[in-house]
């Protein structure tokens, strides 16, 4: 498998003395291939995500967006190529990574408070009882304050709204002070106001702490102001670049192998495809040509 346009390291990085290690990209994939049996999700994927960069990962269902996060989490091995976090091969349980999942309904009687959820993000992976300490308490409170979740820190998580739960998820992912933040559709099933609120929290954090963000999403619009680059995956093909480069009719038509139109309306991108020719085979909100508020009306169609 010949790697395509393998980027070489910039010269200034190579010439650093061995005492100060070269600043590696937060995330680096080289000739990465992921296949399940004969089905190839993506191949020859070269990707560098710099510290503080916001990368949106887009594509239809089954295009391997979540699998990419699983690879970086060390949960799924690559079929070929390499994946590194901070210059080291990916491994399970890396402390350099924070992870935000989709919002899911939690049992109202789950015996867990907001502060416990965040605390588990801090040291839930360690063995033992974890006796309470002032330092731990302060760390958890700082993380809660950073997302404005202090008022419901003691409420049962199952009784909180989806937006409140996702704020706690952001705090849970950031409490360990990660260098890389992996987000798997964290806005799904949130209303528009909470979508904006959660994406602004993540955007503020990566600017303040130079955290690299990989943001898997069906829908680019809620995060569009924050996105530096887009990785668009479709059926084994992909395209990487700024939103202006990737989110064009020409690029997406080539990716989908069918006519796709990208229209900009009110600072929002609408991707309109020809139904029936959709190679993804699944419903994709990008292909629903309705008013700019469509995200609220179609979000229930997705698991």
């Amino acid at each position: 498998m010949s790697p395509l346009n393998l980027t070489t390291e910039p010269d200034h990085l190579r010439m650093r003395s061995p005492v100060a290690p070269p600043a590696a990209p937060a995330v680096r994939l080289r000739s990465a291939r992921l296949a399940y049996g004969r089905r190839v999700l993506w191949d020859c994927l070269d990707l560098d995500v710099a510290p503080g960069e916001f990368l949106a990962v887009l594509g239809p269902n089954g295009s391997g967006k979540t699998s990419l996060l699983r690879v970086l989490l060390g949960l799924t091995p690559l079929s070929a190529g390499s994946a590194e976090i901070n210059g080291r091969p990916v491994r399970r349980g890396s402390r350099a990574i924070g992870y935000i999942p989709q919002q899911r309904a939690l049992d109202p009687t789950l015996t867990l408070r907001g502060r416990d959820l965040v605390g588990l993000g801090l040291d839930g992976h360690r063995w033992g009882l974890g006796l309470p300490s002032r330092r731990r308490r302060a760390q958890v409170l700082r993380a809660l304050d950073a997302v404005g979740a202090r008022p419901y820190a003691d409420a049962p998580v199952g009784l909180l709204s989806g937006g409140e739960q996702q704020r706690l998820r952001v705090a849970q992912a950031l409490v360990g002070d990660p260098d890389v933040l992996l987000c798997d559709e964290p806005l799904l099933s949130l209303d528009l106001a909470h979508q904006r609120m959660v994406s602004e929290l993540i955007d503020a954090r990566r600017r303040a702490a130079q955290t690299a963000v990989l943001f898997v999403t069906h829908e680019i619009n809620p995060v569009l102001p924050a996105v530096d680059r887009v990785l668009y995956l479709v059926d084994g093909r992909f395209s990487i670049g700024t939103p202006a480069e990737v989110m064009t009719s020409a690029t997406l038509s080539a990716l989908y192998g069918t006519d796709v139109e990208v229209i900009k309306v009110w600072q929002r991108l609408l991707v309109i495809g020809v139904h029936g020719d959709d190679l993804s085979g699944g419903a994709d909100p990008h292909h629903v040509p309705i008013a700019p508020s469509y995200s609220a009306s179609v979000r229930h169609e997705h698991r």
Partner: protein
Amino acid sequence: MSIGEILDRLFTLEGTRELLALDFVQQALIAGALLALIAGALGPLVVARQVSFAVHGTSELTFTGAAAALLVSSSLVSAGALVGAVLAALVFGLLGLRERERDSVIGAVLAFGLGLGGLFLWLYPGRASNQLALLFGQIVAVGRDDVWLLGGCALAVLVVLAAVWRPLLFASMDPEVAQARGVPVRALSMLFAGLIGVATGLAVPTVGALLVLALLITPAAAAAQVTANPVTALLLATAFAEVAVVGGIVLSLAPGAPISGYVTTIAFVIYLICRGVGTLRRYPRTSPLNPHPTEQSA
């Protein structure tokens, strides 16, 4: 018999003081208290992981283990019950990792196991009912050795639980993020199943299959109604289990009745009270993002 007479028969403390001085009564109380300790510590995670049916299945399948052991020697019935329970719990843990399959897996294994147990009984040449009676709660038959065994097992279960508490809590409450953080969710699942197997295998010959549910699930479900703090839930569940078991044994002494009814009743009353308190606690609730919860929940 009038209702008054029935109540007099059920609730009397006449002679309780004398009975409490007896060795076998004290041993029964200690055994019950030890079981309540294990059950209270494991219960909240059983409720959080929604594996009540697996606990029920495990407690029933102690019968299969005991029946199989009976074919070898009647002195092995307790050991057989323990082995049966641990095996059943591990099978449920292994096959039922996927949430959607869990119920049907337990149903299938449970039916097969009980059928097998029936076959083992038929194969036994003697009168099995006497030998197996201890599966239905023989707490007054608990000897000094049994108390020591229970104490050792309780200690072991608590030590293991303490050693894996944080990742086990993480994996039970928030499995997706726990896995992403490198917590061995599957291995902890199997370990927890093993702990449930040990607790159940010890409890069934002592207090019977019925009381296993009353001890492992009812107190924890009650605690979950009144607190969201996982540590408080554990302590409350343990306290409720202790009150139910010790209270139930003491109340059953003077009437000379089986303890099951007393223990389950106390546990259920505690559960009902906690549900009431929990409902009052949950509504109304206010939060800055959700300023009108009463209007929405009404």
